[in-house]
């Protein structure tokens, strides 16, 4: 599970470090002031802890109302942020009130004084999933769940893809709600690179690819180590995306843009990206040799650009290239595969349950694909 901590206290951040060491959950630390911006753009399921150190009663009340609008008791269709409150000084008079606002955990002064037991986090996450399941099945969203069915034992209904169960009931995405792709603007570049000429405009599959935690890497590793890491990452990209025609086209620091020829039919780049995100742990262990894994990020789109060879792209002006970079850098969540509405028509029907709407980015509908992770 992803765990995000919002705190300006160094001690609070250190307290959560046991999560990182346990490797069971992905931990990310943020400043308290990043909370609103982050929650606005985040559309996955995560457990967040917010530190209320320094807030007065009125500010805590305001914060709770805001968090409750995002959490499982929210009536919003994507209200699936689970939150806990960190109260290092034990300032709250009525901590039970937090649960009325939908909080699933409270870490008070006494608990904070001891070290974090990650099993507590596991229990909190399990409790949260139960809350979510009940919320989804009882708040009316269930009307959309065409594939839900009660089990004989009366347990919450299970949905699965590829033989792996979803942890809770999820709303099925209606693929008919996606507008048809604007194929009139397509300039097909073929099924391989053989017909592609420099200085000519074509339609391509674009894949923004990134090694995350780049700030942490930059701080911890020497330039040589970072270069070797990026080199190994690029070799893995070639291995995964090369067979579907993918080439690294632009690269800066820890992220880049890959291009794939587009013939209007094949969807191989999506499958390659899906496999790449699913195999993050294998790539981390085998190619990057990292015992503390780094998450990857892939964002996919289809768009037009003038083609020039890699390294000669400095003067290219393309809305599509700008968009995919913005999508990858500003919106796409870490560790996930993000796709635009342009991609949806190419997905096989069996993948439809994996689509999760994420809202709009720069005026276009964006989605992520659910990808199974190590249990």
């Amino acid at each position, binding site marked *: 599970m992803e765990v995000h901590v919002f705190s300006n206290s160094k001690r609070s951040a250190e307290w959560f470090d046991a999560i990182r060491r346990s490797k069971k959950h992905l931990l990310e630390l943020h400043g308290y002031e990043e909370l609103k911006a982050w929650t606005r753009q985040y559309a996955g399921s995560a457990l967040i802890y917010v530190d209320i150190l320094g807030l007065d009663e009125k500010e805590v009340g305001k914060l709770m109302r805001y968090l409750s609008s995002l959490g499982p008791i929210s009536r919003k269709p994507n209200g699936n942020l689970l939150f806990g409150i960190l109260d290092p000084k034990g300032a709250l008079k009525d901590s039970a009130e937090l649960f009325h606002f939908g909080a699933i955990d409270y870490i008070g002064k006494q608990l904070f004084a001891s070290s974090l037991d990650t099993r507590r986090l596991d229990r909190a996450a399990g409790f949260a999933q139960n809350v979510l399941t009940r919320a989804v099945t009882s708040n009316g969203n269930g009307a959309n769940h065409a594939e839900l069915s009660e089990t004989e034992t009366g347990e919450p209904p299970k949905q699965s893809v590829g033989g792996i169960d979803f942890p809770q009931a999820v709303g099925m995405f209606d693929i008919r709600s996606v507008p048809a792709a604007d194929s009139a603007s397509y300039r097909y570049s073929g099924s391989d690179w053989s017909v592609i000429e420099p200085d000519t405009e074509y339609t391509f599959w674009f894949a923004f690819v990134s090694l995350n935690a780049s700030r942490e890497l930059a701080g911890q590793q020497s330039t040589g180590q970072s270069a070797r890491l990026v080199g190994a990452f690029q070799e893995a990209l070639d291995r995964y995306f090369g067979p579907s025609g993918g080439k690294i086209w632009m690269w800066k620091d820890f992220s880049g843009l890959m291009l794939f020829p587009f013939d209007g039919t094949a969807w191989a780049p999506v499958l390659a990206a899906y496999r790449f995100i699913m195999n993050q742990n294998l790539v981390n*262990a085998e190619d990057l040799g990292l015992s503390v894994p780094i998450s990857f990020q892939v964002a996919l789109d289809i768009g037009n650009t003038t083609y020039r060879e890699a390294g000669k792209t400095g003067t290219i002006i393309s809305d599509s290239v700008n968009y995919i970079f913005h999508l990858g850098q500003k919106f796409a969540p870490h560790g996930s595969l993000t796709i635009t509405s342009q991609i949806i028509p190419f997905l096989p029907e069996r993948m439809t349950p994996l689509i999760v709407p994420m809202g709009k980015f720069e005026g276009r509908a964006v989605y992520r694909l*659910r990808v199974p992770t*190590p249990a």
Partner: protein
Amino acid sequence: MRVRNRLQNLCVRGLSQAMDVYTMSHLIRRMFPNYDLNERTGFPDSIPIPRKDAAAQIVEDCVNAGRMLEFVAMLIDVDRDGIMGRVYRVALLRKIVEEIVDEGYLYDAEKRRFVEDSVQQRTKNWGLLHEGEEYLFTFLRLDIVGNSTLVRSYSAEAIAQTYSDLRSIVQSIIEKRDGRVWSWEGDGGVCAFHGPGASNPASLCAMEILHELYLYNTLHCQLSEPLRVRIAVHNGNCEFHDAFEDIKSEVIKKLVDIESRFTDPYSVTVSKTAHSTLDAAISGYLSDFQPDSRNSLYRYSLKFEG
């Protein structure tokens, strides 16, 4: 491996030019601890053995024992590291290695041994192992869950196609990491990885098989239900036999036990001994569990986040 006369002659010349008879005798005892050069050549102790005769006897004995690749790998070590701090240059080494490459082998500098060039050939024994000798292996056993029910529920064609697809997935993943499928019985099989660090590729293969099976179930499976497997990984010393049914080993018995008794459908179980030799980069993805008081095992499976 077939050893041509040219290779044999190059080795004799290389060895005899590189070192004296005493050093040769010392060197070959690394492979054959009780090797007696006088006894092998027929020269009495009182008469010095000519270098070329000594080298020819050693090379011939290596060929007859089927250990030529091991011998040449040892010459490479000698050329690089010397013996007891003294440098020995094997002048014809490059040509010797070229001859071996022509026979379908590559030198793996990390493992310090020759391995089969998988583009040219792929044998059960990696071209190295000898019938009846004991080696350290890591085994991966895979079994289809509910095989009997599946066979009764679907047409023979659908089952044959599905099981054949599974075998292709498994084989390509195993061979990519230099493993070998030693036995396949329709509803599963046993794969082997050779050497001290082999639990790493074996565990990675097990994980990747689960990933690929999920994709197969999602996109291609003809059956109306997902195909599920149990996978176990265990390591230990075991005699090599070309015919799998001739291998009678406690390691294999334990492997079967772990797979059939302690492995959940759609998951991988790694034994404690295999886990203890895993790199931290891989072991971090496994969670420990204790199915009973005598066993401590490690599990890998997939889940969807919320």
